[in-house]
């Protein structure tokens, strides 16, 4: 009878059914007589089944297949979008990142009833800002590097409506990505972030929601009203180092989120061209909040 230690290196491979034919016969002859090695083969197989179980325990995210098919359809027949030439600066280079969350208009939301307002804390915004913009560069729509105009068109095709993508290129910001990560349940958003080639060590987010947001622990923003928009009333709140600047437009809200000074956020908020976008709001989002 062959020695167990001769068998050792082959048992795992045998357990996987991958042992070359000419090596299989002696292993099988040994296994017929050796309980210890048979057990070992079984255990290697059990280990693989454990791995298989664990890997298979992840459910497909809801809607992923549909989103994928939609994107494949979008791809076919459309010319490749034009990319702005720029190098995405690494965080090590301490680039400025601006994150904008665009108004999310659900396809089913055709009614004219405004959605109920929700409470959101500065920390809720800050969490998404950190996760998606600072750490993740989250971009489920492959918007990175596109012009605001191109991104608007791409998102319109993928989402079925034309969201606001503020053109902040005059302020030195280019698009870094778009996603739909929401700060709290029941609040739907679309999330687009911009990167700046600027080397200051800052990161910024701009959020828009599908309804009014009540910013928890907020105070009215009184600084530099001439640089903001006189027709808007801004509110601010803080979560650690992160500032959140929020304002309402008709029945929906927008917020900027960053480690910038509040005055800088105000400047970006004032720069975004909302007028044209607001004319395209769906019925439920139009009109004064009640």
């Amino acid at each position, binding site marked *: 009878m062959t020695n167990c230690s001769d068998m050792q290196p082959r048992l795992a491979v045998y357990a996987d059914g991958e042992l070359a034919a000419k090596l299989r016969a002696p292993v099988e002859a040994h296994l017929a007589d050796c309980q210890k090695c048979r057990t*070992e083969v079984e255990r*290697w197989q059990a*280990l693989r089944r454990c*791995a298989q179980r664990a*890997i298979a325990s992840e459910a497909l995210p809801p809607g992923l297949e549909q989103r994928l098919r939609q994107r494949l359809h979008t791809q076919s027949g459309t010319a490749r979008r034009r990319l702005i030439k720029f190098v995405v600066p690494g965080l090590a280079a301490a680039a400025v990142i601006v994150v904008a969350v665009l108004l999310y208009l659900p396809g089913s939301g055709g009614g004219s009833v405004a959605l109920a307002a929700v409470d959101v804390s500065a920390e809720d915004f800050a969490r998404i800002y950190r996760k998606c913009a600072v750490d993740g560069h*989250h971009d489920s729509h492959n918007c990175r590097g596109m012009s605001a105009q191109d991104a608007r068109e791409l998102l319109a095709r993928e989402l079925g409506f034309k969201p606001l993508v503020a053109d902040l290129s005059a302020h030195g910001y280019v698009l870094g990505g778009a996603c739909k990560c929401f700060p709290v349940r029941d609040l739907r958003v679309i999330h687009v972030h911009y990167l700046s080639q600027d080397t200051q060590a800052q990161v910024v987010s701009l959020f828009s929601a599908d309804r009014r947001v009540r910013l928890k622990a907020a105070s009215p923003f009184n600084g530099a009203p001439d640089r903001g928009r006189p027709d808007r009333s801004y509110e601010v709140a803080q979560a650690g180092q992160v500032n959140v600047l929020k304002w309402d437009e008709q029945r929906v809200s927008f917020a900027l989120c960053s480690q910038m000074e509040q005055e800088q956020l105000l400047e970006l908020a004032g720069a975004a061209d909302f007028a044209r976008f607001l004319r395209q709001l769906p019925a439920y989002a139009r009109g004064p909040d009640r």
Partner: protein
Amino acid sequence: MPAKAEKSFEELAVPHLELVYRVARRLCRDEHEAEDLVQETYLKAYKAFSRFEMREFGIKPWLLKILHNTFLNRLARERRAPRVADHKNMEQMHEAPGAGSEISEPPALDYEKLDSEVKRAIDQLQPEFRTVLLLWGTMEVSYQEIADILGVPIGTVMSRLHRARQALTRALHDYAREHRLIPASEQ
């Protein structure tokens, strides 16, 4: 006639979405990132589909190959932009299991706990070992296919798999001992 002339990319590739996602999920930190990776993989595959020779490779390993390359690109990008490391070293996996864990009565097999132990162990492997172990763990591809996917010789697959499997066994040592999952040679 190559099969691709008869079936569209979507018909051929989307049925493997679950497999591709599951591998991606364990390569990434979270669901968002995994979905991004999967979408990027499929878009790349879609664009390259006309150049794809199914008879030589098969769509499943081909998708996994693109997934792997895309993952490596992202990894390289991240390494240029350093962040808090969240993948522990292989060495840390080799720490001896805690002493004094005398078990009098084996507890009932808690599959959810086992799954999360296994996932945690997989997540702690270095990427090159993790990828091999994941592909092996799906039970959907052969050693040769793993070699093709990763673009390495089959011997490399086998040695990486050997190490990854042992690391997994060690990480699960306590758990595995209770449930007789450990090969005799490892005890």
